[in-house]
Each structure stands twice: as C-alpha cells, then as structure tokens.
C-alpha cells in the first residue's frame, strides 16, 4: 500500500513493480480500520443477542456501526440491515421484495448491466413465475428514466437499477429514476456496491427505498455489507432463524467485520471530497494518456458521468486475457471483460449491452484506482501499456 509509493525503484528492477489497479474488485483494508479492530477478539467477541455484559458490549458496537453507516447515506439507523456480502444484500432486496409483494403483482424491472447477483436473482425469480423487464442502455451504459416510466405497470413491484456500474463506471440517473418510482408507488432498489463511499449518496433526496453497500469495496474488511431498507417497506427475509437485524437477516452478526465496515465508511465520508478529487485527476490523466499514446483505443462508459476511479478501454485487435497477463508480468494488476478470462467463455454482458459486438468486447481493460494510487504509478502504466499493446499487435494476424 503506502510502501509502494515510497519504494525507490532499483535501476535493475525498474521493470518489475507492484501496482494494484483493481480496486473495483477488492480494496486493501485501511490500516486505521485494522487498528480499530484490534480489541475485538478479546473485548467485543460476544454474541449481540446475549444479555450479559459481553453481549451488550458487542451490541453497542453493532448499533454504533448502524449509526455511522446511516449517517453516510442520510438514513435512520433502524433502516440499516447488515448482511454478509453485497451479493446477499442484492438477493435479499430482490427476493425479499418479490415474496412480500406478490399480492400486488409479479413484475420487476432491472437494467441490463446489473452485477450478476442482481441479474441472476432476477433470472431465478423469472423461473418462479415473476415477470422481469430489462431496460435498455445507451452506448455509455446510461438508463433512460423515461423508459423506466414507460415500463412501469400496475403490477410492477420493484425497479432495480445500479448506482454505478462495476465494469465501465457509468453513474446512472438514480435520483430521477427514484422520483418516477416514488410517484408511481413502486419500490426502487439501487446496488451501490461500487459507489458507496466514493460519491455522495442521500437516500432521502434520491428517493431510494433499498440500497446495497459493500465493505470490501471501500477499504473495510470482507464479510460485511448492508442493505438499507426504508421504513415501512414490505420485505421478507430470505434466511430464516433467530430475530437478528430486525428479523430480516437472522444469523449471529459478524460484529468485527461490521464495525470495520462502519469505520471504513466514516473515513470515506470524511475524505470523500478530497479523495475523489485526487482520483478524478489521476483517472483523467490515464484516459488522456492512453488515448494519446495508443491507436485504436476507445473509452468504454461515459466520459463525465463515471466513477472517479474507473477507467475502461477497448483496444482494437487485442485480446483481454493476454493483455492482463502481460500487465501482470510487468507488475500491474488490472481486469478485463474478455470472454477468454471467464469460466463461461462469454464476453461481459455489460459490454454487449452497450452495443459492442463480441469481437470488440474481447479487448477491454479495466483499471480501477484507489486510496493508495500515486501519480508515479499512473506514469508507469502509461509507459508500459503502449509497449504491451504493441507487442501483442506485433504477433497478431490483424496487424497493420
């Protein structure tokens, strides 16, 4: 982390670095968060359901966490449900709303670029007899709120559109979609796993009924996530057991992870403005540099309405898995939407949804920056990436 930027490159080793640019996949735990967790094994290990002092101590930490995260999104503490992962939160949102509102109707609307946990949950509900409508997106991955309005019917119970896309970083017009849903009396869920802690979220102002947040995407530990459920929303649990988390998520609460999540949220909230400003500058430098230095490079996602830390490019005549492997050899960690990198050998559904033909989706590269990304690292990537693209094109039958 911090060490990376301090390390002086040895002349002989100048080619091998250790640069992490995959913060969209997972983040380091902030050392300040780690420090705050040091007393947990001995002091706050109790079960939050226990009545004795150990239980009460753990419970106090849990409630403190709830308050911190509620503050981050302008919600009430009672509206925050802790879960084990963003995948679980999204499953709870879709399946929990579907099962509790079946009497009203069985129609759900989602965007075509949702994370697979929303996409697959919707697909599963489809198999259970619910009807799923999938919105269209434009070439930047933007949902048109007018289409949401058009698709809402009398039997629509839920609209789920993510706040910011995990691959291409596009930020959706959540506030407008939320307003439409509120006016129509339809619940609105947004998956904010990629955006929480990075850009401002106000669930009241944005008319959000349900919101998913993830600890491990914002410098907290893995194993903690949340679902904001606005007061008065009709929702059923998908797990059954004890009465934890207001009956919505029965299981002994993982208090250390949850508290780490909250602490991470506290720092994100405090430092958001400064941090996003810094990341935006680095992001734009990378985008500009890649465009200037590499021919046949096209930015995926919206040029302005995008996460401050997301860069996603498509390179002509480049296959993504080979590109990631070459970058890895040079010490740069990144990701791709190429089919060859996936188990199913299918290109990313997000890239296909924005209109890229399969052969074009193979050459995508995602760089996601984070708290410890430095200008030096950005320069290194700008130096190495053009060479790698050249090498790969050199052995390709498509070379010009």
């Amino acid at each position, binding site marked *: 982390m911090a060490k990376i930027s301090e390390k002086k490159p040895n002349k002989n080793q100048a080619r091998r670095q250790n640069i992490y640019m995959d913060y969209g996949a997972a983040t380091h735990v902030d050392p300040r968060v780690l420090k705050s967790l040091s007393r947990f094994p001995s002091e706050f290990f109790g079960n939050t359901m226990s009545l004795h002092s150990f239980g009460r101590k753990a419970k106090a930490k849990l409630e403190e966490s709830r308050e911190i995260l509620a503050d981050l999104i302008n919600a009430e503490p009672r509206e925050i449900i802790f879960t084990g992962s963003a995948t679980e939160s999204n499953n709870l949102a879709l399946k929990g709303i579907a099962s509790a509102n079946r009497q009203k109707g069985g129609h759900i609307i989602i965007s075509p670029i949702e994370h697979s946990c929303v996409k697959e949950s919707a697909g599963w509900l489809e198999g259970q007899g619910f009807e799923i409508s999938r919105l269209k997106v434009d070439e930047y991955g933007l949902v048109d709120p007018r289409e949401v309005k058009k698709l809402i019917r009398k039997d629509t119970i839920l609209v789920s559109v993510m706040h910011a896309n995990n691959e291409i970083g596009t930020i959706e017009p959540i506030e407008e979609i939320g307003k439409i849903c509120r006016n129509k009396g339809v619940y609105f869920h947004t998956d904010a796993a990629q955006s929480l802690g990075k850009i401002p979220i106000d669930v009241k102002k944005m008319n959000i009924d349900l919101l998913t947040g993830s600890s491990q995407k914002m410098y907290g530990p893995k194993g903690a996530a949340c679902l904001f459920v606005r007061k008065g929303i009709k929702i059923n649990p998908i797990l059954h057991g004890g009465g934890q988390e207001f009956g919505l998520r029965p299981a002994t609460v993982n208090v250390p992870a949850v508290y780490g999540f909250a602490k991470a949220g506290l720092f994100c909230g405090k430092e958001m403005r400064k941090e996003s400003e810094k990341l935006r500058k680095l992001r734009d430098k990378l985008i500009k540099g890649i465009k200037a230095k590499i021919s046949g490079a096209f930015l995926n996602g919206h040029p302005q309405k995008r996460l401050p830390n997301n860069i996603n490019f498509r390179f002509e*005549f480049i*296959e993504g*898995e*080979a590109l*990631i*492997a070459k970058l*890895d*050899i040079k010490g740069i960690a990144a990701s791709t939407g*190429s*089919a*060859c*990198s996936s*188990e199913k*050998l299918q290109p990313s559904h997000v890239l296909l949804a924005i209109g890229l*033909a*399969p*052969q074009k989706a*193979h050459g995508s590269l995602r760089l996601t920056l984070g708290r410890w990304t430095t200008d030096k690292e950005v320069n290194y990537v700008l130096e190495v990436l053009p060479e790698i693209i050249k090498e790969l094109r*050199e*052995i*390709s*039958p*498509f*070379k*010009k």
Partner: protein
Amino acid sequence: MPNNFYTKKVMNHFKKPHNYGRLEKADGVGTVGNAVCGDVMRLYIKIGLDKKKQEVIKDIKFETFGCVAAIASSSAITDLAKGKTLKSALKISKAGIADSLGGLPPVKMHCSLLASDALAEAAYDYLFSNKKEIPSDLEAKHKQISKDRKRTEKKYKDWMEEQKKIMDKN
C-alpha cells in the same frame, strides 16, 4: 490468474513466443478461428525435401490474436513441427501440444486444437496448391474446419466481412 492458472511452460512461451511473424513466400498458409470467439491463428510453412526425398517443414511461423493459451499453443506447435516430415507433423495432436506445455486448463484445451487445425490447414493449402495427393483424413479435417467456418460466418456475417477486409489488406 496467470501464475497458478497456467504452467510455467505456458507462461514462458507466452512471454517469449518462438517463431512469430510472417513467413514471406510460404508454401502453405492456414488460418483458423475467428475474432468473435476471441482467437485467430495463422500458420505459415515452408516445405523442403530431406535425404529420403520426403517433404519436411523447413520453416514455420505463426501470427495469433488470442489469449495466453492461444499464443502459447501457437508457439509450441512451431517448435514441435519444425524439422519434422509433413507426414509426422500432421500427427501432432491437441493433447501433444498441451503435453509439451505441461498441460492446459480444461477450459483452454480448444486453443491447442486450434493450433493443430491451423497446421492441418497450412498443409492442406500446400498440397492443394501444388496439386499433390491429399490424404483422406486431412481432406476430412479440412472439410470439417470449412464447415465450422461457414457456420460461424453465417452467424456473424458482418464482422467476418470486416475481418476479411483487414486481413486482405495485409
């Protein structure tokens, strides 16, 4: 991914591919795969005669668009085929290529198949254009590859045309 997904041999071929580039005045050229699926492999062969007057692959080069496994398989087959008689080179199987790489992940085995197909196509091109006798199994393989190609072309017509234009320009 590359460190535990692929063997060291695969990564070595990928890092420093052998025999890549175009072979001018090749006696046979074989192109297989398509960019929609993410792999296009082209092999060039130069044929000579050995002391027994048998046809030998004197030189071989590849050009590949594709993933780590596709590039490594291309590089590996050039090593395996170089210097061999055409007859014995055509016996190089996808398993033989994968073995020479210390194994390939199951999901990537089709890359080694692509390499052996490319060599078969290059051999076919050489035999056909020199009006030589084509062994029946090579003829059958060629037919199968052409059939597969036509099926893909039908499926992705527009892109294939674009791809052909780019390749023809080169």
